[in-house]
């Protein structure tokens, strides 16, 4: 028989100022099963907790109701209190008479009445509580990092430095991501390659890091601490062991007219290629779509020329399964496709280019060796317009968000123009400039005050070609004047979008994403690197637009989460997860269909039906995977699946304690074992 003690907290005057706590304690002492009740100024203080412990001893309490603040605040505290006195921690229930009562009411009488009802319900539930034990699951101490941009590289390095093996999976032929394409970087103007390349090399040479480039995650199975990642190694058509990276193949390949992704289409590459000279690994891949051999069966030049015989046309995709305990997703971003803005003529007017193309023009390793020239005629541009917020903060293109980096990289572009193209004038069209980072405002002022960039507030309505120039038409919203500017080149600061395939990957990982395809963090402030799926973390632009410093910080944060996860041999998890009643489960597996965490397994049981022995397959909850969301409970027709700690019966009892007739309220619960 349950013996419940009720402890009503004043919370100083927070509760006692509006609720007659003495009356609450007295009224609830009359409830069935309540053998002791009292009130105290601060239940969470040491003396308060000691009162609970004393009462447990003296009154042989089997369950405790603390009527105080939100369980978010002190559930853990009071669970520990009762546990210290030998009572199972999950036999403690809280009634929130502060946030749900005293703070939101001012009529003492009514608030007191409500508090009594809340405690009555908590007692009703406490009677039905069951002891629970924390769940322990073993951990595989290896991590998977998806995406080899700066965020993925940083996360991999930090985790590997912590002594943990890392599998780094990169979709493209080389790691490095977008940062490898940049020239100098704001706010310090250090050269992107110079700071990135050493990190790429570190990652490649780290004994704890295994890189799969030109590879993708095919499937993720399992759960926190125990994932199985199935990786598709796409066919490179080149044997990684044999190739020494001499480059004869891409130099001799007759198919050289393929726009280079790395150069943002500003120059061409061969069908067999490494994306850029510092690529890691430095082994080429054959782009089968554009290879003459693969398309028509003729050619085969690379195979003939290769001194080590590394070319392997009949390679096919391979599948590798890696066991890991945690996953960091760092799949980065893509750039807003400016083709859709017809008024800007991107793609039609050769001298209208994207921000990334400007980076390549300005880069010493780029197609022009760092000389800033117009794509149309190779001449030096005297006047260059930069347009901010292209495809950002624009409802018209379904992108109300700020891409966070374009203001800053535009300021950087203006500075680079001033540095590298003497005498050229930069005009920047902006809505408002966002320069919130450390050293950012100073950087912006440098652009305008020292480097001569002219900033004009306004939206550009149209770009068109006239007499070899690009005419920028728009309005200066500060002066109200119409502007018509004849420029030699226009750079569009296109915003950031989710990386292609982001949603598909999210489904493989069972993580959620927002309406734009960026992955959702578990809490915007307090859990910014975790996802809602335990054991999966986020780093870099895949979560939201951000610059390199922020990407790197988040990557290190994710790495520390992974290392913390791996600090013990077992994971302990809260036991509030779903549980199947083997007697009522029919095995229809509707729960499995709806479970977002793939947490329903099968189990064979033998039951007796009408005197016959029948072996049936029923559902079983996977202790490692279940997140306790409760969706399964809602769809189960025969109510065979239940959330421990908030079982239907427990809730049912609470509702009855509140809504039932006077008799029902004090009745022995129907079907209760107590």
């Amino acid at each position, binding site marked *: 028989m349950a013996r419940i003690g009720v402890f009503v907290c004043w919370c100083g005057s927070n509760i006692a100022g509006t609720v007659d706590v003495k009356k609450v304690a007295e009224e609830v002492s009359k409830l069935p099963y309540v053998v002791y009740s009292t009130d105290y100024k601060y239940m969470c203080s040491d003396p308060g907790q000691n009162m609970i412990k004393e009462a447990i001893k003296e009154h042989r309490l089997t369950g405790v109701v603390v009527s105080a603040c939100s369980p978010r605040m002190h559930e853990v505290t009071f669970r520990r209190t009762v546990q210290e006195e030998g009572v199972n921690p999950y036999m403690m229930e809280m009634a929130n008479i502060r946030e749900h009562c005293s703070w939101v009411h001012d009529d003492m009488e009514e608030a007191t009445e409500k508090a009594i009802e809340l405690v009555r319900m908590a007692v009703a539930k406490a009677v039905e509580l069951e002891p629970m034990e924390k769940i322990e699951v073993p951990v595989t101490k290896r991590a998977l990092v998806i995406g080899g941009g700066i965020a993925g590289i940083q996360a991999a390095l930090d985790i590997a430095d912590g002594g943990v093996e890392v599998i780094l999976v990169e979709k493209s032929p080389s790691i490095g991501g977008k940062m490898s394409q940049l020239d100098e970087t704001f706010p310090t103007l250090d050269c992107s390659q110079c700071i990135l390349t050493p990190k790429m090399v570190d990652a490649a040479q780290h004994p704890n890091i295994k890189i799969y480039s030109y590879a993708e995650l095919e499937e993720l199975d399992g759960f926190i601490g125990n994932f199985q990642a199935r990786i598709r190694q796409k066919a490179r058509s080149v044997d990684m062991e044999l190739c020494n990276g001499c480059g004869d193949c891409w130099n001799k390949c007759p198919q050289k007219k393929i726009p280079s992704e790395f150069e943002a289409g500003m120059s061409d590459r061969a069908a067999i290629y490494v994306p850029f000279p510092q690529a890691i690994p430095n082994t080429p891949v054959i782009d089968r779509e554009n290879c003459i051999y693969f398309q028509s069966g003729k050619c085969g030049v690379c195979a003939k020329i290769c001194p080590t015989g590394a070319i392997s046309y009949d390679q096919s995709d391979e599948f590798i399964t890696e066991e890991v305990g945690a996953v960091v997703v760092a799949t980065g971003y893509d750039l807003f496709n400016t083709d859709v803005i017809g008024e800007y003529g991107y793609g039609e007017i050769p001298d209208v280019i994207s921000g990334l193309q400007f980076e390549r023009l300005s880069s010493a390793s780029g197609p022009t060796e760092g000389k800033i020239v117009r794509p149309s005629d190779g001449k030096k541009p005297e006047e260059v317009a930069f347009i901010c917020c292209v495809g950002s903060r624009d409802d018209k293109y379904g992108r109300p968000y700020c891409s966070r980096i374009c203001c800053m990289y535009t300021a950087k572009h203006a500075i680079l123009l001033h540095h590298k193209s003497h005498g050229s004038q930069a005009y920047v069209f902006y809505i408002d400039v966002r320069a919130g980072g450390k050293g950012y405002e100073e950087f912006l002022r440098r652009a305008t005050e020292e480097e001569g960039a002219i900033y004009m507030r306004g939206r550009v309505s149209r770009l068109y070609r006239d007499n070899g120039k690009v005419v920028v038409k728009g309005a200066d919203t500060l002066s109200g004047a119409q502007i018509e500017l004849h420029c030699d080149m226009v750079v569009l600061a296109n915003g950031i979008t989710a990386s292609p395939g982001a949603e598909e990957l999210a489904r493989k990982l069972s993580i959620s994403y927002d309406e734009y395809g960026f992955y959702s963090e578990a809490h915007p402030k307090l859990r910014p690197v975790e996802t809602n799926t335990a054991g999966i973390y986020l780093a870099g632009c895949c979560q939201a637009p951000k610059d390199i410093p922020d990407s790197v910080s988040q990557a290190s944060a994710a790495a520390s989460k992974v290392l913390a996860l791996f600090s013990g041999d077992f994971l302990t998890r809260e036991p509030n997860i779903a549980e199947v009643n083997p*007697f*009522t489960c*029919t*095995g*229809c*597996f*509707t729960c499995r*269909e*709806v479970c977002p965490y793939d947490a329903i397994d099968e189990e064979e049981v033998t*039951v007796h*039906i*009408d005197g*016959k022995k*029948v072996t049936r*397959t029923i559902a079983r909850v996977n202790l490692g995977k279940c997140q306790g969301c409760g969706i399964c409970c809602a*769809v189960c*027709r*025969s*109510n*065979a699946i239940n959330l421990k700690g908030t079982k*239907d*019966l427990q809730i*049912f009892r609470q509702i009855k304690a509140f809504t039932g007739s006077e008799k029902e309220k004090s009745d022995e*619960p*129907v*079907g*209760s074992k107590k």
Partner: protein
Amino acid sequence: MEQLIQEAKKLLEENKVDVVIGYRSSPLPPFTRPAFIRRPEDCEQLVFNCGSVYNLTRYLIGLGEKPAIVVKGCEQRGLVVLEQENMLPRDSYLLIGVGCSGQVDERKLREGGFDRLPEQLSDELMADKCLYCDQHNTPDADIFVGDEVESVEPRTERYAGLDEFFAQDYEELYHHWTEVFSRCIRCYACRNICPLCYCEQCISYVNMPQWLPRSVADNNNYLFHMRRVLCMAGRCIDCGECERACPVDIPLRTLYKRIAQKIEGFFYGYRAGNNREQLPPLQDFNKDDSADFIL
């Protein structure tokens, strides 16, 4: 009929199945009853006619023997649902398909004092589900016996009159149904005969814990029926057995058809059991699913 008997015999003689579940004659309306034939020589008893009203698939779950079973077109949908719900793998029974041009309304037979089945079944005597039937021949049959029914024009519409009926305001509907349900004696015949009510511990009457009050009172009955409607949402195949079995003539299908109509409207024309590959709405999620029904 001859073909049915011969096929059944063959199955039993060749030990392909342990039992053939079908129909045999009976002196009382609807003039057949379920037959479980285990010996080849008993196969002569098998009949199939317009009095073969029973939905025999109800017997399949937990049978413990390998059966061949006679299933009409409408009822085959239930087998699809059972397969989708992992209750009955397709290879656990042999499906004997038939052509059915309509079944009698058992109640009308009784009321009309018939002492045998009519030679020719008139629309007046026909079960109303048959008047709008669009699956007269059993699909997916392992063995098809008899002639296929050539195209029959539906005479009524599946959801006829429902929109008008449910256009009444909430109070009126509530009173209407409370009154209708007041006849219910909670015998659970409707639940027990339903081919999709396989839960061993149906929450309609389980008592540990007791979800629904079991006594026959207006409120309790209302709760029982409305809750069962939820179980049937997206699953009821409209075989009509619940209404046939109900001793007090509760028009249960009005409710089940209404929810089926709603689901068909909300979820891309979904009809329970029509397509094995199409996931039931409760198990499927689509970003552009209708949310109009959420309060």
